[in-house]
Structures are given as C-alpha cells and as structure tokens.
C-alpha cells in the first residue's frame, strides 16, 4: 500500500473545530504505541505525557538547551502561517506551527487538555446563562518582534472566524476553515490588554478548544500596521466599518502564506527562520519566549511524501524523526526492523475513522434485515488484522460512531458483528430471502447486489476486496465501485449503496449533529430517528459534562440498533526517532508539540 497513490488524502484536514475536551481528557495511556519487547528502554506510550505537564496545566520545564539541529520529516511540507484560511488549511501547517504559535490550551499526546500556563493565568466560566468565559493572559507575554501578545490577538481570531461577515455577493469574506464555536460567540470584549471576555449566544461546552487548539492566534498588530486599520477591536463581524473589515479580511486570507520574517513573528518557544517552498521550514529558539527555553537549537521540518522514503532517510541518518499521519505498513515494518540500530518506532490511533454508511434510499437497505446481514458478514477483525495491525499491533475494530476508543464514554456497540457469514445468511433467510443456485440471495426474483463506493485509495480497495470474499458465503454480492470523484459529487447526492470513507475530523461531537440528525447537512443516507435527534440536541448544548456524555452515548447506541453505519477502525499515526529521549506523535499537532522538551541521547 504505497502512499504515492493516496497523497491526496494525505492532506488530512486539520482537525476541525474543537473537541469535547472534557471527554477527551485523561484518556488511558495504553492505547498507543508499540510496546514490543524490543523496546530498548521505557515505554513509548508513556511518552504521550509531556515533561511539563502537571494536573490540567502545562508549563515549559527546565531541560538542557542543546546546540544540535534535528531534522524531522513528515508527509507534506508546510505551506502557510495562517492555517485558518480555508485554502491553506492542512494538518501539516499545524505540525510546523505547534511550537511557533501559542494558544490558551494545549493537548498532550493522549489529547488531554492542558491550560498553557506559560502564557495564561486562568480561564473561567464566569456566567452560565448566558455562558460567559473570561480568559486571563499572563502579563509580559510578547511576540518575537517585541509586541504584546494580548486581547487584540484573541479578538482578531474571533472576528475572522464567525462565518458571519458577508461581502456584497453574500459570500463569507474571510472563508475561515473553522467557524465552529466562534459563530456562537456574540461578543468579545477587552476590559484590559490581558483580559478577554467572551459571551456566548448558545451554550458551548467545548470552549476550551477555542483560541489555540482549533484555531491559531495571529498577530493583530502586524495586520493593523499593514492594513492601516488602527484597532481591530473596533470592528465587528457584521455592521460597522465594512471597508476596514474588507481590508482586514483580504490581508488575513492572503498575506500570511508561506513565510515572511516581517509579517510572521512567533509567540511560542520557536520561531520560523527559513522556509523553502514545497520542501522544508526551519525553526530556531525564540529569544523572546516567556517560558523556559530548551530543546534543540534548530529544527528542520521537511516534507517527504513517501513513507518508505521517510523511513529510509531515518535509517540513513538524514533525518532524526519520522512522523506520518498516513499509516503505511511497509514503512512501519521497516522501522520496526531498525530497533537494533537504536531507532524507536511508535504508532497510535489517530483522530479519523473509516466507516461504511448504508444508504436508506437503497431498496435493499430499506430492509433492516439486509443491513444487519451486511454488518454480520463483514469481518472487521480481519480488516484490522491485514490493514491496520501491520502498523498498530494492538489495533481493534472501532465500536462506536461517536467516541474514539481511548475516550471516556466509549462503549463497543458493534461487538456482535464479528464476520459471521452463516449468521448473516440465516438473517437473510429469516427475512424471506432465498439463496439461489449461484449462491446469491434473491427476493422477488431479484438478486441482492450491493455496491461499495469509495475514492481510489489503495487501502479502500483492499478493504472492498476483503469484504467481497467475506460476504460471498452469506449470499451478498458485493461490487467494487471505485470513483476518484466519489467525495465530490456523488456522496452529497446520496448516490451510493454503501459509502466507504473516513470522517477525518476530531470528535467535536456537536458537529456530528450534521451527520446523524434527520435532514442534517451531511446526512446523505436519509437516516432518520427522532430519538437520535433529541439525544444530539441535548448532548451538544449541555454544559454538564456527565449529562452531555450520557446523551452522546444514547445516540451512539440508538444508531447501532438501527444498523445505519458500520465503523471499521481508527486510522493510526506512526512515528520513529533516533537519538532523542521522548518523541510522541500528537494526533493534532504532530511530532513537534513537545520539541521544546527534547533532549539528545546519543
């Protein structure tokens, strides 16, 4: 499964929006990492925890400042400083910017949410109805050009991403990649430079994902200077000075591409010092960083699109760290084989999952028996065994549409579907289908024939090949429908029997509403269950964590009972390194999230 053929999907979209942070927190740490016996020392899974982590807070720890240069490779190169601009948005920008731009919160390797105490005093809900959140910035935090990192910058983040600023043609003038949560904020106020007060129109339990995790805080002073707009906090998403707003939007979406030293200062531990388009970006320690400095003097982040080539470069000593958001069995195997040379390999579940949606508009799938039989014959464990375990040895089939495996609240709702063709066959026979002489189930003289539609990614083709063999004995004829344009036009028109693809965003659970509620914008399969609608409505606005989680679990269980969509597995991330003490691939922020803590070991 070479990835030269699927690098389109390698533009995994940045984890949109925020997370149900509360639910993510404190996930068990045994979900990731190869814990093979050949590990020289320690356990890779424990590297998910940052050195500077303490409770729910993070402070840069005291680590030796080395003079080394580390070369880190990842699938695609960095392209833009403002990763929220829709045409620039991709995870690989986040991977580079994780050390460059500070936010209110950050995530550790287990996606535990940590308050960034290097730059923040506190974040508190100061009112529940309406929800008001007050963000207090530590005094003295600056950008690398010496300007204060303050409320203006937060204000600009909100201003750019409400999705409400429309031009004369009715189109969003910012086209932010990420409006979730920001569109619910009615106003942002700056009582002082170091205090930000956000008032929500609708309750939003995921507020911790704002201003940092879901969206990078850009330097407002640079934009003000360049556009001649004296103070962005005087502007509002709608109404107000439209001319100035237009100038701000234009600068925001076009001028922060690539790298320009004057326009792109750093607010994190590292600053960008060099950039070679389509190849690499160089980071060096930020002398104005307020936290404790540490880590390598220089980090070069390179894009190498072929995973096997990444592994070979590590083997050959040209790079010190590999980080791959796209799993590749061949590269994984190669990297595991290098343990005797001191290379350590890790893999962990990433934040997108492969699934199959069954279309209720299809005449066979209108019958729940056929949906059930289909789910019964698919052997998800074999899929995981052949496609995922070569990368992540302890991968298990995913048992939920709502939660990831390590999350609090996860229950396996699909445990009964184990690839039992005989059971599938009897389900069909019990519902009045007869198995014909050619071994295919028929009803009313018609053969039950099901097309699985997907884009041309090798792994998906392999998935369908395997399912074809698995479901044949059950009497279901499976047809492979590979269409590079499947996601473009067909999926949103509901033009499929079974849609095989991955939801590539984070568990921002309130955005799931659009997928599963009746008539939802991304509910292309005509799925409708009023009880699920009610559960989602409750879950995505309830500020009580436990109650919200319970409602999500209800929705999850109800959907499983309806045999609507079969989750297959989570797609793993993988990484490898040599000569560094602790490296972990953070599923949102890539390998550099804790680079300020790296210590050279040999």
């Amino acid at each position, binding site marked *: *499964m*070479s990835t*030269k*053929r*699927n690098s389109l999907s390698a533009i995994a979209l940045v984890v949109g929006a925020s997370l149900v942070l509360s639910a993510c927190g404190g996930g068990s740490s045994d979900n990731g990492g190869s814990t093979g016996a050949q590990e020289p020392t320690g356990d890779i899974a424990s590297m998910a925890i940052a050195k500077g982590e303490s409770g729910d807070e993070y402070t840069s720890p005291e680590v030796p400042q080395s003079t080394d240069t580390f070369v880190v490779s990842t699938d695609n190169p960095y392209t833009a400083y403002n990763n929220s601009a829709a045409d620039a948005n991709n995870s690989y920008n986040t991977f580079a910017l994780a050390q460059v731009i500070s936010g209110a919160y950050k995530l550790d390797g287990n996606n535990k949410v940590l308050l960034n105490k290097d730059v923040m005093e506190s974040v508190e809900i100061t009112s529940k109805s309406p929800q008001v959140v007050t963000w207090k910035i530590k005094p003295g935090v600056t950008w690398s050009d010496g300007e204060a990192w303050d409320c203006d910058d937060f204000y600009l983040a909100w201003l750019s991403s409400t999705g409400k600023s429309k031009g004369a043609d009715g189109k969003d003038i910012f086209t932010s990649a990420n409006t979730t949560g920001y569109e619910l904020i009615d106003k942002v106020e700056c009582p002082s430079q170091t205090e930000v007060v956000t008032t929500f129109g609708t309750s939003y339990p995921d507020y911790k994902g704002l201003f940092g995790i879901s969206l990078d805080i850009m330097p407002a002073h640079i934009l003000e200077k360049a556009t001649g707009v004296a103070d962005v906090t005087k502007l509002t998403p709608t109404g107000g000075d439209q001319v100035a707003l237009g100038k701000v939007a234009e600068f925001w979406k076009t001028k922060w591409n690539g790298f320009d030293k004057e326009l792109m200062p750093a607010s994190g531990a590292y600053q960008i010092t060099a950039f070679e388009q389509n190849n690499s970006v160089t980071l060096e320690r930020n002398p104005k960083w307020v936290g404790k400095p540490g880590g390598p003097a220089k980090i070069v982040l390179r894009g190498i699109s072929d995973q*096997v080539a990444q592994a070979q470069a590590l083997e050959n000593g040209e790079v010190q760290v590999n980080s791959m958001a796209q799993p590749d*069995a*061949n*590269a994984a*195997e*190669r990297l595991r*084989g290098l343990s005797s040379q001191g290379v350590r390999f890790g893999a962990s579940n990433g934040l997108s999952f492969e699934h199959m949606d069954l279309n209720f508009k299809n005449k066979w799938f209108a019958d729940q028996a056929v949906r059930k039989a289909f789910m019964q014959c698919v052997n998800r464990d074999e899929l995981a*065994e*052949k*496609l995922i375990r*070569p990368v992540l040895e302890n991968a298990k089939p995913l048992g939920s549409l709502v939660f990831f495996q390590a999350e609090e609240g996860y229950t396996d709702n699909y445990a009964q579907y184990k690839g039992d063709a005989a059971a599938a066959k009897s389900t069909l026979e019990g519902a009045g289908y007869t198995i014909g002489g050619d071994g295919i189930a028929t009803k009313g003289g018609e053969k039950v024939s099901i097309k699985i539609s997907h884009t*041309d990614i*090798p792994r998906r*083709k*392999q998935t369908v*090949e*395997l399912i*074809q*063999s698995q479901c044949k004995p059950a009497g279901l004829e499976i047809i*492979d429908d*590979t269409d*590079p344009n499947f996601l473009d036009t067909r999926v949103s028109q509901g033009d499929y029997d079974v849609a095989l693809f991955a939801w590539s965003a984070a568990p921002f659970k309130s955005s799931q509403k659009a997928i599963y509620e009746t008539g939802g914008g991304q509910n292309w399969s005509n799925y409708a269950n009023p009880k699920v609608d009610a559960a989602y409505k409750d879950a995505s606005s309830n500020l009580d964590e436990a109650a919200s989680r319970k409602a999500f679990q209800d929705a999850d269980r109800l959907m499983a009972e309806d045999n609507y969509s079969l989750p297959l597995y989570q797609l793993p991330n993988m990484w490898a390194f040599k000569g560094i003490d602790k490296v972990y691939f953070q599923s949102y922020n890539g390998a550099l999230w804790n680079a300020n803590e790296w210590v050279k070991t040999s």
Partner: protein
Amino acid sequence: MPSDPALNPLGATGLPPAGTVAVATASEFDTTKARKQSTLVLRRFFRHRLAVAALVVFLLICAIGFLGPLFWTVSVEDTSSRGYLPPSAAHPLGTIQTGKDMLAQLIIGTRLSVQIALVVAIGSTLVGVLLGALAGYLRGAVDSTISRFVDLMLIIPQIAVAAILVRALSGSWYTVAFILAAFGWMTIARITRGETLSLAQREFVEAARAAGAKTRWIIFRHLVPNMIGTITVNTTLAVASAVLSEAALSFIGLGVQPPDTSLGLIINENYSQITNRPWLFWGPFVIIVLLSLAVNFIGDGLRDAFDPRQTKVRA
C-alpha cells in the same frame, strides 16, 4: 526514460529528424517474390541464435501469463490466508499484504502486462502506419495536417498525458493500453511517412495509380508490403517500450489500478520489501527485465533478417 521507439538505439531505423526523409530499403512488390522474401527472412531469423533464444523466452513468459492459471489454480482473489506469508508449498512466492497468493498475482500481472504491451504495439503501429502512409502518399494538405497533428502529440510527454487520462478515466488494463497506444504512434507515423514519400515515386506505384487503383488499394497492396520490415521491427520494439512505460506509470500510481494488476503495479506494491521479503520484489523485476530484453533481442534478430545488408555491418 526513453519510451519512444525512435529513441530505442536497438531500433532498425535511425532517427529521421522532422522534415528529413528516412532511407527506404524496400524491394519492389511482387507476390512470388514476397513469398520468397518471407521464407528468406524467417530462415535468416532462425539462424540468429540469440534471437531464437529470445523468442523462446518471450513465448515462455506468455505461456506463464496465459496458461499459468491452468496449472496454478489458486484464485487470485482468495484473501483467506494471512498477509505476508513466507514462501511455502502452498504459496511458492508467499502472500502479499491482503493474504493473496503472490504467484497467482504474478501470473495475472504478467498476462495483463503482456496484453497491454501487445495492444499498445499493434494499436500504435496500425494508427502510425495508416496516418504515415496517408501523409506520405497524398501529400499536400493531408500531409501537413497529419504532420502538425504529430507535432502536437509529440509536444506533450506521453507519460504526462497517460497519467492525466488515467486519473480522468479509469485504471483498468485496457484503458492504460489504449491510452499508451493513442499517444505512442507518432514515431512510427513519421518513419512510415518518410518511406512512403520515397516509395510513392517508384514505377510500380505510379503504374498502379495510372491503372486507376484506389488510394486504399495502393496503400495496403503496394506500399505497406514494401515497408513490412521496418514496420515489424518497430512494432517489436514498441512492445518493449510499452512494458517499461506501463511499469513507470503504474509505479507512480497513475497506471493500472486494482482490481486489475500488472507487473508495474506489483512492483509499486512490493518495492519496499526488497530487503525483508526479496522474493516479492525480484519476482516481478526479473519477469519485466526478461520480457523487455527478449523483445529487444527479437527486434534485433528481425532487423538483421529483414536487412541483410546491415547484418554484414553489425552481426
């Protein structure tokens, strides 16, 4: 990589630059003489030991591809085994990632690669000869139209168009073959045009024309038989270059796509196993090299057989 038969140094014809005329080596057409010529050619070819050996290798490879499934009955779709099994009696070349039998894969891949190469060679020869002969015989507006068309097709690198079209259409073996043929006929057209230009001046063609023969008749009964040597050799060489073009295209993932397979695609899927499971890499590699080597030697032998004058020089 020169995927253009004109760039094939093993080719019979040199490289006629645009606008210049290739030297024709035709003998005049006559039925009895032609029969004699074909016997002669065959006899000369079979005296060329290397070429005969190459022919045997080529036929063997074809036999593996086309008759292999009769002897090796493991289904190519059977995924019930574990992935990446080492070679054993049940799987002489082990299994690939999804648990499919490598030997069965290799047999199908060989067959489809040979099919692609043959379709490309024959297709591009047909189109090239037809257009080249038309241009050379009719001249004037037809000639310049065809020549400009050839120029247009030569401007865009074949591998690029093929990649674009595979992305736009599909990656089944026949699409790939059709596309490679559709963008691989230009050299043959140029060579044929050159030969036709010189043949059309000969008395026997003029006599036929004077007798009122139709264009179609003249081209197929008089011109083509006299160019058969050049055409055959170039067709052979086109087979070799099609094998390599297909491999290149499939390697970058813009060639044959599953569920079809080909030697190039098998290499794409298994190249990184070169050290861990060498049999997965070297199997398809050896077949590709043997295939293209054999065809090149056959071409060499054919060229010598058709053109004994040159044989003195070379062999």
